[in-house]
């Protein structure tokens, strides 16, 4: 086994992949929402968004604002992961009301069971590439908490 990365380099995987500006939209009350896409030709819905529909190959993909809550389908606390990641961390799949399943980090998992309602939290972060591009991270929490 390679030795683990020094503590200052280890980071939770939620910051390993940031959302681009295109992955986030804002609801009327200004709160951030995940932004997927919906195909105008066949109705397929995906997250994250893509320019080409993965079902019918159409280029008519439109932005789709996703709800800030969903149902936690399954989750697991991970104890062994690539060296750069800080363990343990919890990840899971959430089914959003729009019919899209999203994978992400889960906070407050000790209060959760399969089929629990969860909220989607989104936060702006510094551009990891050191530039000025908008960047965000997201995670799931028990509904009603942050």
């Amino acid at each position, binding site marked *: *086994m*390679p030795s683990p990365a020094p503590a200052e380099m280890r980071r*939770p*995987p*939620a910051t*390993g*992949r940031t959302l681009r500006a295109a992955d986030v939209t804002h609801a009327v009350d200004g709160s951030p929402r995940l932004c997927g896409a919906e195909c105008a030709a066949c109705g*397929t*819905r*995906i*997250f*994250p968004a893509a320019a080409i529909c*993965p079902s019918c190959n159409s280029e008519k993909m439109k932005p789709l604002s996703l709800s800030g809550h969903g149902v936690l*389908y*399954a*989750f*697991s*606390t*991970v*104890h*062994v*992961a*690539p*060296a750069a*990641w800080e363990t343990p*961390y919890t*990840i*899971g*799949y959430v*089914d959003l009301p729009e*019919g*899209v*399943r999203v*994978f*992400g*980090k889960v906070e407050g998992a000790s209060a959760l*069971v*399969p*089929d629990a309602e969860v909220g989607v939290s989104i936060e702006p972060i510094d551009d990891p590439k050191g530039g000025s591009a908008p960047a965000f991270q997201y995670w799931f929490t028990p509904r009603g908490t942050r």
Partner: protein
Amino acid sequence: MHANLRPVSVIGTGMIRFGKYRDSTVPQLAQPAVREALREAGLEPRQIEAIYAGTATSGWMPGQRVARDTGMSGIPVVNCENACSSSATAFREAWVAVAAGLYEYVLVFGVEQLTKLGGGTLPLDQDDIEVTNGMVMPALYAMRAQRYLHDFGASEQDLAAVAVKAGRHGALNPDAQFRTETTVEEVLASRRIADPLTLLQCCPTGDGAAAVVICPTERAATHSSRPVRVLGSHLASGKYVPGFRDMTMPEITQRCSGELYEETGLGPEDIDVLECHDAFTIAELLYYEALGLCGRGEAVGLLRDGVTSIGGRVPVNPSGGLLSKGHPIGASGAAQIVEIVRQLQGRCEARQVDGARVGLTHVTGGGTSGFDHGACSIHMFGV
């Protein structure tokens, strides 16, 4: 079977004991398995007309690297990668070529040296949004396990029982990486990997190689006293589903096996012995159901009743499976085929499934977000 394809048989098998061989090279791992298969087939290397090789992480051109050292350089080589289904895919492509009449004698092998990666979880696609948010293979299976326990009222002890059976079978297999039996308590007390899966519920890191030689059935009797026929071969890829998906019913396995049963006219009730993709304990339970051995939620009972143990009606993973025999991923497909062929030939001694006449091999492979798995390759064999 497609009307234009001629029947194909396996006439030689070979494998090395799976384990950790950090100081070997990839050709050094594969060569003994390849030479054993050639010896069994009664063939000189120069009689082989093509090589189909499978590896997932062990470098480019495994076929040519091994051919060079074994007197087979210069013939057509196809190197296949389908993650854990790499060598089963290689076998399928070899089968297609021989069945179509392109070649008479073809070598298939799989090789993998995971110890070169340093241990831990397999490196996954770094562009995948799930991977960069923390997905690792054990976590994927752990979520399946959590959901299965939740939906069907199964327990962690039920998961551990899969590893206990694997250990019992592996102890009877000289080629298994792990040859010691274990208990439910030991399995559950082992290191936590991704809840609820513990270390002994996960296939180990290891290295290995396995090989087979095939030829048209009409020639097989001159090379083997007990040739084994390929009754069917099927390959499928995962269907991308961006929304809700029932993770307790592996769709790619259900679809691939269903199509194979339809093609061959044989069903799960006709299978006497099978090797399936038990990369993690939960996988074997899910595959009992997806392969049609039992109905939804009945897998735990099947295992508990001894149906899938040696001595039961349809022993599953008599080799010890990926859990005990090991899972050098590119070699596993070929290794399952070696086991099933030897079972049908009656050569497996302490772990022999008596009277086995029809056997099945099943591997899945890798994946990316929105998939059950990336690939699935299933073969049926008979004597």
